[in-house]
């Protein structure tokens, strides 16, 4: 299977070039620390409701994804390496490689966010950990699936930074609302079975997004 091995190499290339500078990872970790401390400052002595807290958790995850995931394609355009990549491998491998890398990045990030969120915000008590971690996993997959194609789009536009959240928000909203719902269920101590509907939505969203992106990525990449 050609496509698997080339995709794997794209993934490794992303990983290596990231670890050479650790720019994205460091910037993102600082972003997480900053937003979490702002939340902690603003909470102070108050005890906000669990609904508000599960909403803010996904706000933090959404905006850290927005600041981190666009880099994969924007950096290619900035360094002028996209032409070489286009010559060497076919579009599908580039897409799959970058999708997997984005998924790994956002998964690591959301796990860090979720762990520190549970540790530092004492009012936020998770009762059903299976639902909580499955939501984090599937939510990250959904975020990565939609943001990879959008990152490819905005890498070709003039104003890259502000455009990404504007384009991504309406598309990711069904995902975010479902994630918030599932997180609420986890904090209420629901059984795993009760969250099946939410997981079905998350999985189908991810599958639909990846399938569509896979079909249209060629047009964006070769443009």
């Amino acid at each position, binding site marked *: 299977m050609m496509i698997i091995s080339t995709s794997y190499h794209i993934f490794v290339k992303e990983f290596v070039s990231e670890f050479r500078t650790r720019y994205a990872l460091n910037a993102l970790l600082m972003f997480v620390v900053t937003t979490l401390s702002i939340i902690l400052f603003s909470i102070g002595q108050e005890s906000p409701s669990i609904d508000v807290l599960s909403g803010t958790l996904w706000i933090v995850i959404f905006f850290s994804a927005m600041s981190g995931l666009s880099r994969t394609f924007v950096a290619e355009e900035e360094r002028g390496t996209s032409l070489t990549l286009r010559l060497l491998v076919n579009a599908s491998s580039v897409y799959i490689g970058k999708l997997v890398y984005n998924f790994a990045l956002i998964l690591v990030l959301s796990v860090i966010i979720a762990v520190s969120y549970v540790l530092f915000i004492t009012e936020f008590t998770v009762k059903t950990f299976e639902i909580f971690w499955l939501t984090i996993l599937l939510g990250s997959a959904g975020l990565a699936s939609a943001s990879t194609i959008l990152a490819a*789009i905005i890498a070709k536009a*003039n104003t890259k930074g502000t455009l990404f959240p504007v384009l991504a928000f309406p598309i990711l909203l069904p995902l975010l*609302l479902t994630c918030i719902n599932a997180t609420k269920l986890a904090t209420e101590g629901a059984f795993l079975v009760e969250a099946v509907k939410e997981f079905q939505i998350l999985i189908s969203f991810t599958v639909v997004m990846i399938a569509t992106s896979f079909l249209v990525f060629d047009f*964006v990449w070769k*443009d």
Partner: protein
Amino acid sequence: MKTWLKIAVSVWLTGIIIAGIAFPMVKVPQTWYEFPFIPGLEEKARNIIFHVPISWATVVAFAMSMIYGIIYLRKKDIDYDLRSVSSASLGLLLCILATVTGAIWAKFNWGSFWNWDPRQTSIFILLLIYGAYFVLRSAIDEEERRATLSSVYSIIAGVTVPFFIFVMPRIMSGLHPGSLGDEQGKGPVLEFKMAPNMLMVFFASLIGFTVLYFWMYSLKVRQMRIERHVQQITETH
């Protein structure tokens, strides 16, 4: 569009507006022009003749924009992009109209202009998608690249629409018919329980607004083509 069709749709929609506003609502309808008086909905029920067809036309405009986007990607003819963006700009107008008529109805039936009912959320997201679409277009200078990328964006946005129409109303409780917790109508398509004469006006309005959309669309496409032509002439001279 043919002249007779333009005259026909004008007369048709005038008739619907008169019927929708002026037909009396009585407890026990006797003649063909009397609508039934439903407690709770009362005279506000008339809005269904305008609000629902406008929302429908919004969806048609969005679908047309996406379909022309797909054709553009296949054929790479810039004229299809003009059609796609014309439809999207009309869709934005209709979307605002649907939101406003819906918000007014919500104020007088449910008590507030906005209450994040699943369908209100969906129309709000549709507004955001249209907004993002035009922001994306304005961020790209090159004509063909703009056409390709905005087509791709409308496809990506288009595949999320089923989640709003079919999925969200099922998991969120809402006020529209067909939402979770509504005993009478479970499902995205309502069971029609309107009086037959009202149903006829409703469907007539649905057809009328759809044809009106196509009329406006053909005008918009011609305008866009002329604008592009003029731009090309001024650029070469």
